[in-house]
């Protein structure tokens, strides 16, 4: 078999195999059981809590969780604004990069706080090393926030009736120190030994063999790239992200970075099963997500490997596929695979330029973010999927004429209203944003890098990426100006916190309800049939919401090229 395809299969298979034991470890961490790392990390965590005066054993109800989460996120946002706007005179700025403008700092700070990493700047010239280190802190903590939120749901669903759902700060710190940190250290060291820089020396300059003098941007890249993937953040150290030969030097690092971004979202599914002692439920979720992932990923790889038909007409050798925006060391198969993995999971790091993907591959990347529930980002993937489970329970309950129940709790009007708001907010933000941008062509059309249908896709992609907290882009879009910085900034806030608050509110309400033991009359929610029901709900909601906009962009472009 072709070595490029084999590489993709190996990358995916290894990740799935390791996700199961890693999921077991994650479940242990959140259950407070003993693990090997206790010796080193318990004192560190104790120190954190002592200094900050937090009693990690004080349990919170769901509202207290949300207040704690929003407060600390707000602190990070303000600190981020300060660092980014003042980086010009602050220390650790060897390349002499200037401070960011207020609108760019607003967008960047929000974007990293909400785990999106939409970057309207280029890493080489837009941020100092101090800012990069600060953004790395947000890489850890924003991923930890998502995971802590998911665990609140785990706890709420585990107990038969519960008011108290653990301590937010405890879950946040454990996510960072026990899960993200050890994995990041391993990945960062692997990258450093494969040629990724880890230095504070600033820009280098060389004379090429043909005699041109060029700069070479370095920096503390290895540490940054590791957590950018493990935390499904995706904000690159350099402008070209993981297509850059220093961020991603060879095929082995490409496999490791791919593994790093998929492992925690996959492991969280299995952690859910281990934590609740409902392994069958975890397999149902995994099955639906994997099916959805493959449906998006396989056609994309085929289109990318086949290459651009418009260039094929010119009569050159298309053997390597659609190579515009791609790197020879990865090839078109691994790049196509990555483009779907990074959009399904909310990483948004890229190893090829999505703007130059084939039209229908671009549509698959968009669909991956529009559904936003297959695997998903650190923790938030489970939260989004949870909404669709609630919807599916309700709809199938009505179809068979039974009271909708999930894990022994009745789903009633209040929970359904919250679920619907969360499910509909996502298309609303994407479509309203894109509609607004197209309504003011005198402001936005000058920012487009491509004419026609593809230009529309660039705008649609930008808002989809913001609303899915993804962070990748059709990067031809000239997005560093007040219009894009401010509109996407607000979409980022809404699309991060409402899909966190909604599911937790539902889980909190369910946890308070009386437990009804499962009986022969209960609708089984861990069966393959129910899995197909969830998939159907996801597909129908996505198709109804987004089909018209997709026909205006990628689908129209596809037919125009035939």
């Amino acid at each position, binding site marked *: 078999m072709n*070595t*490029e395809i*084999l*590489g993709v299969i*190996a990358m995916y298979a290894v990740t799935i195999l390791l996700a199961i034991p890693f999921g077991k470890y994650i479940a242990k961490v959140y259950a407070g059981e003993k693990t090997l790392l206790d010796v080193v990390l318990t004192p560190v965590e104790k120190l*954190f809590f002592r200094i*900050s*005066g937090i009693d990690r054993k004080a349990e919170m109800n769901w509202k207290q969780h949300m207040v*704690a989460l929003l*407060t600390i996120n707000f*602190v990070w946002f303000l600190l981020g604004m300060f660092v980014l706007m003042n980086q010009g005179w602050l220390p650790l700025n060897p390349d002499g990069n200037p401070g960011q403008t207020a609108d760019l700092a607003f967008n960047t700070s929000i974007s990293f706080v909400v785990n999106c990493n939409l970057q309207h700047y*280029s890493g*080489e010239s837009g941020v100092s090393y101090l800012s990069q*280190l*600060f953004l*790395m*802190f947000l890489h850890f*903590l924003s991923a930890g926030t998502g995971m802590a939120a998911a665990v609140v749901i785990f706890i709420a669903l585990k107990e038969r009736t519960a008011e108290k759902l653990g301590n937010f700060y405890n879950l946040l710190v454990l996510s960072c120190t026990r899960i993200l940190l050890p994995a*990041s*250290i391993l990945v960062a060291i692997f990258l*450093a030994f494969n*040629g990724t820089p*880890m230095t*504070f020396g600033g820009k*280098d300059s060389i004379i*090429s*063999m043909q005699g*041109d003098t*060029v700069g*070479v*941007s*370095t920096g503390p890249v290895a*540490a940054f790239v590791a957590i950018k993937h493990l935390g499904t953040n995706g904000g690159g150290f350099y402008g*070209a992200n993981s*297509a*850059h*030969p220093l961020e991603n*030097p*060879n095929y082995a690092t490409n496999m490791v970075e791919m593994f790093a971004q998929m492992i925690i979202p996959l492991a969280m599914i299995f952690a859910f099963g281990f934590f609740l002692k409902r392994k069958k439920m975890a397999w149902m979720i995994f099955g639906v997500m994997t099916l959805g992932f493959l449906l998006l990923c396989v056609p994309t790889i085929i289109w990318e490997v086949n290459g651009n038909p418009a260039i094929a007409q010119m*009569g*050159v050798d298309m*053997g*390597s*596929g*659609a*190579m*515009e925006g*791609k*790197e*020879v*060391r990865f*090839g078109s198969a691994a790049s196509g695979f990555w483009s779907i993995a990074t959009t399904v999971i909310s990483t948004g790091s890229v190893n090829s*330029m999505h703007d*130059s993907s084939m*039209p229908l591959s671009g549509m698959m990347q968009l669909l991956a973010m529009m559904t936003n529930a297959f695997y998903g980002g650190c923790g938030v993937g489970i939260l989004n999927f949870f909404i669709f489970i609630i919807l599916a329970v309700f709809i199938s309950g009505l179809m068979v004429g039974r009271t909708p129940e999930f894990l022994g709790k009745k789903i009633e009007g209040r929970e359904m209203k919250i679920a619907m708001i969360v499910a509909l907010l996502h298309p609303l933000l994407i479509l309203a944003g894109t509609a607004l941008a197209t309504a003011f062509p005198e402001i936005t059309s000058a920012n487009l*890098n*491509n004419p026609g249908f*593809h230009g529309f896709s660039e705008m649609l992609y930008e808002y989809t990426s913001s609303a899915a907290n993804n962070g990748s882009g059709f*990067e031809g879009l000239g997005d560093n100006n007040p219009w894009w910085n401010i509109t996407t900034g607000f979409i980022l806030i809404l699309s991060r916190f409402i899909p966190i608050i909604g599911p937790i509110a539902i889980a909190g309400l369910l946890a308070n309800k009386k437990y009804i033991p499962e009986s022969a009359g209960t609708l089984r929610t861990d069966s393959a049939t129910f899995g197909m029901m969830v998939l159907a709900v996801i597909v129908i909601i996505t198709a109804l919401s987004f089909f018209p906009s997709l026909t205006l962009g990628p689908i129209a*472009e596809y037919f125009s090229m035939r």
Partner: protein
Amino acid sequence: MKTNIFPAIKLTLVTLIFFSAVYPALIWAVAQLAPNNGHGRVVTANGKKYYANIGQTFTKDRFFNSRPSAVGYNAAGSGGSNKGPSNPEYLGIVQARIDTFLVHNPGVDKKDIPVELVTASGSGLDPDISPKAALVQVKRIASVRKVSEDKIKQIIDSNTEKPLLGLFGPDKVNVLSLNLALEKL
């Protein structure tokens, strides 16, 4: 809110020190053991320093040419062209690259030009081309340098990097090492 704000600020500060200073310091310390102490892979030839992983502009006929680049192989920045597949202006550029290639490589059939030689990479710094893209340039280099084609094919052969473990990923060849080998002939 009030009960949370001070713990939140204090926890932020202590974790900030840990994740932005202690963690990178640890990785930096380990990277001192890595090749070239964590400054990226470097090749030196004739007293000049080059980065092995950073591609360079090679447009002269006596060198193996590298891929087109949207940033002119200046690694002070990075990025692709971000041109969409149906963009007529872009397709015109690709056509012009094919024509230029044919002018510089008389006797080469259009269907033997691998597509990566006429399309720009994502980073603009791609250090590699496929072995096919190197082979298609052999005739030109042999006639400019007045050496046998076999010798140049040998250089390609000895510099071709096989897939990882022989199993995963594409074949490739680093343009810089090819050209350094050419200069030694």
